[in-house]
């Protein structure tokens, strides 16, 4: 088995990421919208650099791939704390 998990939160494999790129994704949000990479509990903190490097090697536009927009909260926080 040559496949490996890239996004643990959502259980996304390398092969799925390559499939998304094949399908036309050329940015981190593009891969995310196709296969859910970075949509989970850590919000791509772990997998985004890896996905970026995979994209950089595959898409070959010479530009750095567009990254996911950083959004609050910085870490998961209970809604009760937000409204307090």
């Amino acid at each position: 088995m040559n496949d490996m998990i890239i996004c643990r939160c959502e259980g996304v494999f390398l092969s799925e990421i390559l499939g998304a790129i094949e399908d036309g994704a050329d940015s981190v949000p593009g891969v995310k919208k196709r296969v859910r990479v970075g949509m989970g509990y850590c919000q791509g903190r772990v997998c985004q650099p890896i996905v970026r490097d995979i994209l950089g090697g595959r898409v070959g536009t010479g530009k750095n791939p567009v990254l996911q927009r950083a959004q609050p909260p910085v870490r998961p926080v209970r809604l009760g704390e937000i409204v307090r």
Partner: protein
Amino acid sequence: MNDKVIVVGAGLIGTSTAYYLAKSGAHVTLIDAKDIASGTSGACDRAIMIQSKKPGPTLDLAIKSAEIYQDLEKELEVHLEYRKSGGMIIIETAEEMKAMEGMVERQQKAGIDVKLISGEEARVREPALSKNIIGSTWWENDAEVNPLKVSFAFANAARRLGAKVRLGAPVTRLLTENNRVTGVEVRGEMLYADAVVVAMGVWTPMLLKPLGVDVPIIPRLGQILVSERLPPFLHTGILSAAYIASKLNGDPDDETADPYGVGLAIGQTHSGSLLIGGSRQFVGYNNTETNPEVTRKIGETAVRTFPQLANVRIIRAFTGLRPYTPDGMPILGPVDGMDGIYIAAGHEGDGVALAPISGELMAQAVLGEEPEIDIQAFSMSRFKR
């Protein structure tokens, strides 16, 4: 059918239009400046709420669209996370009750059998609802779907039928000859077609403006919170009466209205996350940062309605621009006084529900077939009067 048609914009409306055109045999090129569902369609929630639609032509469209959704997974051969979950509009005050009684009566007259139920009945359906909820509407035919999956499925189905899909390809202008649009320019490259459909949502006015056509679509910002994955918590799609008031009373010049337009819209995704919205603000195209004050206000209404949510973790907030029109109805059809150009945009928060029917009607209009629903009510010319 040998018509060459260019569809600009690969969101829900553009991909749907491309699919139905390709299905009818047209030679379709679907173009997007970025990617499929990279704008509004990738920054929204998942409700196919029919009972929340404005009574009249929009509701008629929504009813027809909901019928198409029932068989869409089979037609496109993709799991779209479609589920007929039913929908509720929850009521907190006597004043809201009065407004919702009127709305329910109008919806019933329009042919959908929405019911008003008591607070107790509402809590039987959604046990986590607060004891302070005094009533709710209920309609079993409201549904939900994953809009990302719908957009990609339409685009891929169009591709299988021969459509070309060009991503990362910004259309910089429409090509014209006399009073006819003959194609588009993409980064200096001219692409010619018999017809061009502009399905660029909030960005539609920018492409039409150089032709002297003013499309009255205004971007309206909506914010949504995403929770950690939870075991099944909600069974239906839920809106608050305050959300309906904000949706139907949009007026950019009304300064007395809640500036954030906060009303609850909540549902649980296939993965288990809750999507908790929402807000409606007129802040232009560029102020799309999430706002902590809006996050707090959405949080307050969510916790007030579902007290257990205080213990649920939020992992992300995001915003999307919704294409508002002054009368709350989408723009579908040709542009008066000009040939070869069509608009399919301006669905604001109704794009998920209306995508299939919008695409089907646009394909019929472009290919000169009699549309199955009269689209005159949605024409651009209504704004001139």
